[in-house]
């Protein structure tokens, strides 16, 4: 039950009657009149209970892009439906026009488009559709909330895509596909071909030369079909907001760039997100496009306010691949979290794998560090220095154990991690 502004106006009109014939009688009569009018209107309104509402909408949308969620309202009642319909999207779904007026003749169906501009990554939901069905007089309405669950997966935006062309070019240079043929670009034997002027004499294959009459050189290509395992930390340290972006989102960006790059480089990419348990997993064997599977898996990830359990990492990595792999751990270098967890398990990982630890560095600390002039500012500078020294110490410790460390500010992390991958690939350490 709901009333319209028209009903309130009708009631206000009653004040004329009360003014002309003051007294209880005119009040009661006018009350009876408007109540009767509303009652008739309610009786003639289409029952919202008997409507059938369906959703038609895309499964997913990239953050920063718009989507349209369509509601189809089928009117199975015998009367015409005049209604205000509201789609109950959560606020961060950014519904521009969730509430719309619609008229559906008896026995027909009409659709209503809701423009969505999601404000945040994740799975955004709408649990219900509320219908307010007015009678022909437009005075009173029957209202009902219908459970029509719907959700849309808002995928990470993959801003780091813009770094991809330059990194791919570097990869192709390694691959020997370009005209510039460099000795040592790659470590895996590819083929034999005739010697041409300008080739490095050290690459002449003497045994093959002896078999043929020509001078033959070996060519190399970068190693292929290696495994890259990206482990993304979703524990409490990933909740930290650096440059207005949570560490987790920066990690996802870096993951996407590295995965696409490694895939183009012919490697097999596995992804897992973990804190105290595995939160998401994408394996290299799937049929679908790797990028779409990755963004789908990463979309619902959220920082959990619990400590990461690094001890599950060796087992998880072993389950993915028993062979030598490149393990990229996207986590943090905060001293407390790493010293207790990562440092303990790193030797076990390093026995078999190449490990890269990637971390987002806070540029705010550098700003604090440069402060001075007042006592509080100097104390802040000292605290920032202490944090930076601690990070440097942890980084040095990890390096001394044999891991590679990438510690960069948010917008630098993805390209620098890609560079690290290219460097390792070029030197044949995968």
């Amino acid at each position, binding site marked *: 039950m*709901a*009333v319209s502004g028209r009903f309130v106006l009708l009631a206000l009109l009653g*004040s004329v009657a009360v003014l002309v014939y*003051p007294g209880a009688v005119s009040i009661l009569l006018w009350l009876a009149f408007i109540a009767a009018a509303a009652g008739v209107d309610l009786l003639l309104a289409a029952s919202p209970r008997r409507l059938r509402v369906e959703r038609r909408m895309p499964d997913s949308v990239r953050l920063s892009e718009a989507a349209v969620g369509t509601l189809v309202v089928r009117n199975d009642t015998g009367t015409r439906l005049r209604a205000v319909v509201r789609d109950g999207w959560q606020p961060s779904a950014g519904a521009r026009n969730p509430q719309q007026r619609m008229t559906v003749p008896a026995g027909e169906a009409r659709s209503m488009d809701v423009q969505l501009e999601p404000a945040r990554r994740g799975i955004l939901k709408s649990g219900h559709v509320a219908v307010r069905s007015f009678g022909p007089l437009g005075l009173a309405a029957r209202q009902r909330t219908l459970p029509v669950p719907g959700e849309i997966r808002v995928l990470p935006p993959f801003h780091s895509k813009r770094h991809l062309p330059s990194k791919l070019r570097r990869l192709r240079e390694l691959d020997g596909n370009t005209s510039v043929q460099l000795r040592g670009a790659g470590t895996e034997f590819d083929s034999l071909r005739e010697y041409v002027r300008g080739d490095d004499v050290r690459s002449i294959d003497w045994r093959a030369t002896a078999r043929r009459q020509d001078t033959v050189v070996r060519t190399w290509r970068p190693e292929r079909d290696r495994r890259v395992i990206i482990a993304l930390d979703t524990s409490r340290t990933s909740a930290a*907001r650096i440059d207005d972006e949570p560490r987790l989102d920066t990690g996802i960006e870096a993951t996407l760039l590295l995965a696409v790059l490694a895939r183009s480089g012919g490697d097999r990419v596995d992804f897992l997100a973990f804190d105290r348990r595995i939160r998401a997993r994408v394996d290299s064997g799937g049929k679908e496009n790797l990028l779409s599977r990755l963004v789908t898996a990463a979309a619902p990830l959220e920082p959990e306010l619990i400590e990461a359990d690094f001890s599950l990492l060796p087992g998880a990595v072993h389950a993915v691949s028993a062979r030598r792999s490149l393990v990229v751990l996207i986590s943090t270098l905060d001293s407390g979290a790493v010293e207790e967890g990562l440092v303990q398990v790193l030797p076990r990982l390093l026995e078999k794998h190449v490990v890269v630890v990637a971390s987002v560095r806070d540029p705010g600390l550098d700003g604090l560090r440069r402060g001075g002039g007042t006592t*509080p500012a100097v104390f802040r500078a000292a605290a920032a*220095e202490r*944090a930076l*020294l601690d990070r440097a110490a942890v980084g040095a410790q990890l390096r001394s154990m044999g891991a590679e460390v990438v510690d960069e500010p948010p917008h630098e992390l993805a390209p620098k991690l890609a560079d690290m991958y290219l460097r390792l690939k070029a030197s044949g350490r995968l």
Partner: protein
Amino acid sequence: MRVAAGKPGGTAESESPEEAHSDELRTPAGRSRFAGRLRRHRVPLLLLLLLCAVVLASVWGRADHDTTPLSPANPAPDGAMATAEILAGQGVDVQHHEQLAEAQAALEDNPGATLLFLDPAGFLTSEQREDLADAAGRVVLVEPSLEQLADFAPQIRSAGLLPQEPARHRLDAGCTNDDAEAAGTIEAGGKTYRGPVTCFEEPGSEGNDAAGSYAATKGGSAVVLGSADLLSNESVALEGNAALAFRTLGADETLVWYQAGPFDVPPSEAPTDPFSLLPAWVNPLLFWFLLVAALAAFWRGRRLGPLVEEPLPVVVQAAETAEGRARLYQDSHAVGHAAATLRAAAMTRLAAHLRLGPGAGTDDVTRAAADASGRSYAETDHLLNQRLPGTGAELVHWARDLKDLEEEATSS
């Protein structure tokens, strides 16, 4: 609904601030903090107390102090305390009453008493005045109105005002009344009256129909004094004012000094209800508007569908831990610790920039920094290794010098 909470490195289960606060109040430390706060705000608190005391004292004094004109308890210039005290000193029983019932009871207890009737504001009704006139043997009126005269002394009539300039006139008795003759000359302003006996006539109005400041009935059962000046503290001592006042008021053993007040106003019929003056349609219309307002509230207030909840993600500012640590340093005045950290960081950066390698000692870095910045070794050594700050101010200067050194050494 999850909201922004938590802090990297902080414990999840910390006490709520309210609990911590109440704990603090219970402990001796909390009490001493309260005492400290009291000491710090000593001067404003004292001033506040003083102000309260002054206000209280003035209110108290005012409540105790009679300010009614011609009141026997009022020592102000317009009071009549002097007259009453002197009369009492002469053996007259002065009974001061401010309520009609008390005055009437006093008159009945003392038959033949003189009633001094004072009602300049006209609180009493005609019937009340007549009752009072019946009860009183002899009545003295001061500046009575026409109605009061009609009830107490119908033979005496009002005759107007003495000229306003000057405020008081010297008037001679000019009649055969004993009291007036005893007074001789008075100095008074106010009103004039005509009666069977009229004295202190207004200059220029002598003759048959003269008006004066003193009028009385033939037997002296009612006396009208034309001016409060004759009784008031300010002017009772002028000329023969005192003689006239004392003789008029002190004629009997008892003087009932009655001052009418607002409490004597008789309860009249129920006052007219202002709402009864409104037109008949106002109440129904207001009721109808109320109804329409309720309907409008329902119209606007009815929500279309339930509230939708938004599961907010956890948000933590990354530099929060550094800020927290800075505040810890500051609260514990960890100047030495902060300086050591700044020095270590500067040394590390200098060593890295000057390519000294991991094995370089303090002295190597100092020497290299001195070379790179162009300063002397002694000066650099003093800054880096000798002159460690002890106070906050020193720390600020030292940190600035350290930064300067670093910039000089790394810019070249």
